């Protein structure tokens, strides 16, 4: 894949993460999560064979589908085409998202020189961006679904970084198990909250 395609993949990846940070529309968020995993697949091709990169794509899509199906069965999904005005919170988070992308881009070049010389700057920008978006989402949100999306984003960022540093099949298997377990915990939180509301 050439560099331009890589840059486009990273831009779409960060845009998807930003949508998850800014908007509170569950169907849209899960669509953005699936898009995020598709872009991770494209970015990770830089350091992994298509076969191994495909595992991350399949796991990511499975995670998104699991969460979506749980939301659908709990009757919590609102139409993706439903229009809502931007709230002041969303404007604030949007501004933060732009700042986070800028910070990731600026930090990535420094980190590449001093800490991670074997990782490319594009990959570092993507992974740091995801880590920052995830951390911000985890730190500011108390709603379980968004927290799980934040955790998944944070983990994908770290996985992306670690993939450029070390390869181990055991590690890949463990990351897969962690991602799927996290999605299960997310589904459990959603079901539990629905039960809690109805009691």
């Amino acid at each position: 894949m050439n560099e331009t395609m890589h840059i486009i993949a990273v831009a779409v990846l960060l845009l998807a993460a930003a949508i998850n940070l800014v908007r509170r529309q569950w169907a849209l968020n899960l669509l953005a999560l699936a898009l995020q995993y598709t872009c991770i697949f494209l970015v990770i091709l830089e350091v992994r064979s298509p076969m191994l990169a495909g595992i991350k794509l399949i796991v990511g899509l499975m995670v998104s589908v699991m969460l979506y199906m749980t939301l659908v069965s709990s009757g919590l999904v609102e139409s993706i085409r439903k229009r809502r005005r931007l709230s002041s919170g969303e404007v604030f988070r949007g501004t933060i998202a732009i700042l986070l992308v800028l910070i990731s881009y600026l930090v990535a070049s420094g980190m590449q020189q001093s800490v991670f010389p074997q990782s490319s700057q594009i990959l570092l920008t993507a992974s740091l961006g995801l880590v920052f978006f995830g951390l911000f989402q985890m730190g500011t949100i108390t709603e379980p679904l968004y927290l799980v999306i934040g955790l998944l984003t944070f983990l994908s960022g770290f996985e992306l970084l670690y993939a450029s540093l070390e390869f181990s099949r055991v590690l890949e298997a463990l990351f897969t198990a962690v991602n799927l377990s996290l999605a299960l915990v997310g589904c459990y939180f959603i079901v539990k909250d629905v039960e809690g509301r109805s009691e």
Partner: protein
Amino acid sequence: MNMMSTPTIWIFFPLLLSLVLSAVHRLHKLSVWIACLGSLLLSVAAFILPQNLDFTLGGRNFLFDDTFLILNRALILTGSQLKTVAIMYLFSFLWNIAGLRFSVSRWFPTVSLTITALWVTTLSVEPFLYAALIVELIVLISILLLTPRGEQTDRGVMRYLVSQTVAMPFILLSGWMVAGIESAPSASTLILRGTVMILIGFSLWLNIFPLHSWLPMLAEKAHPWVFSFVFLMQQSILALFLLKVLDQFAWLRNQTGILTVIQWAGVLTLLAGGVLASLQTKVNRILAYIILIETGYSVLAIGLIGQGGGEALALSILPRALAYWQWAYTLSSIQQIAPEIDGSFTSLRGMFTTLPFHSLSLVISLLTLLGLPAFGLFPAKRMLWNSGAGLAYHYTPLIGLGVAGMALFILRLMHTLLTTDPNSSSPADSINGKESLWQIFVLCFMTLLSMLMGLLPHVFLNPFLSLLDPFIHLLPPN
């Protein structure tokens, strides 16, 4: 591949057993008994298997392999680690056998066995820093027990999840960062980065002060029986894992000032736990502060490794577990006898007149944890107090303040349990249920056991010093 390997027996067999248990989890009694029997067998087997893994039974000789290869990596469970494994399965047995009496999740037997097997895996996986991902898996599985269904997800459990997840990258990256660094000079930037990352990772894992804020929130909502089990395992194994990290990484243990940093982290954590405990008015939350204080002691023990801290850590593992067991059993039993008691001091007022043995048991388990002479934790705590005071005078007042805070809470609790308010009635005055003979027997037995361990430590506790055998670099054998 030798199927008679230690990882097969103490990791894969219990994991397989938990799969079976998940299929029969609706038959609660059956699954509890299977989990109890499985845990007890695994614990006894780990206790009796010789360190050279050569076992003779009925004239036949069995030689066990200590390595299991998986995807080019290894699970290694040596003979010297089996005592730790035995302790872990003993905890699983103790919590399952009494868990049947309380209204904990039906998944408790399945999940507790899985968690125990995964904790064993953390001590056996090579490269050992991969254990970070296994700890994350344990956390995710524990969530199912810690948050009961039918209630909204509270902030405590979410913060717990976040804090443990954020810890994982620090541990994994530190391992990568300092791979093959042994030949570099000790003051190199990489070593410093690796050290800082490991310390941050462990601080998040062990909820070192001030990263403990989620602990009381979680303790308030979770069932005390589940909470005590999950955090006893986490605290005990992560302390041993920290010892393993120090043992395996020469660059880390030789780093100037590392042990002083660990000592300060321990002292401040136990100080914070003691001071915050003194202000509490809910016994449900106290378990969180107990865990915070005991984490402080464990970390201090690791910091004082050269002054007998390792021995103190090994001596404290069993009595601490039994004290947690007694506290959680008493609290769960009170909630079962009188559901109207919500754990607040107002609801406990005058409880001694209606539930005298439970009231005494609450106080005695706290006194054990305080380190009162004649109770099980006294020998370990005395060693730490003496070593701390011998090393630096400024530790003594801080540790003393922590102990005083806990003592103050115990006095307040005793006052609440013994006195009644003539102007208002408390739920404890009108308890319909009574203490059964069985409950009284269990509470008295645990008290007696704790006293026996305190009075005869050389009989009951000295065998646990062999928990330190695997750490040959940190604590070279004499």
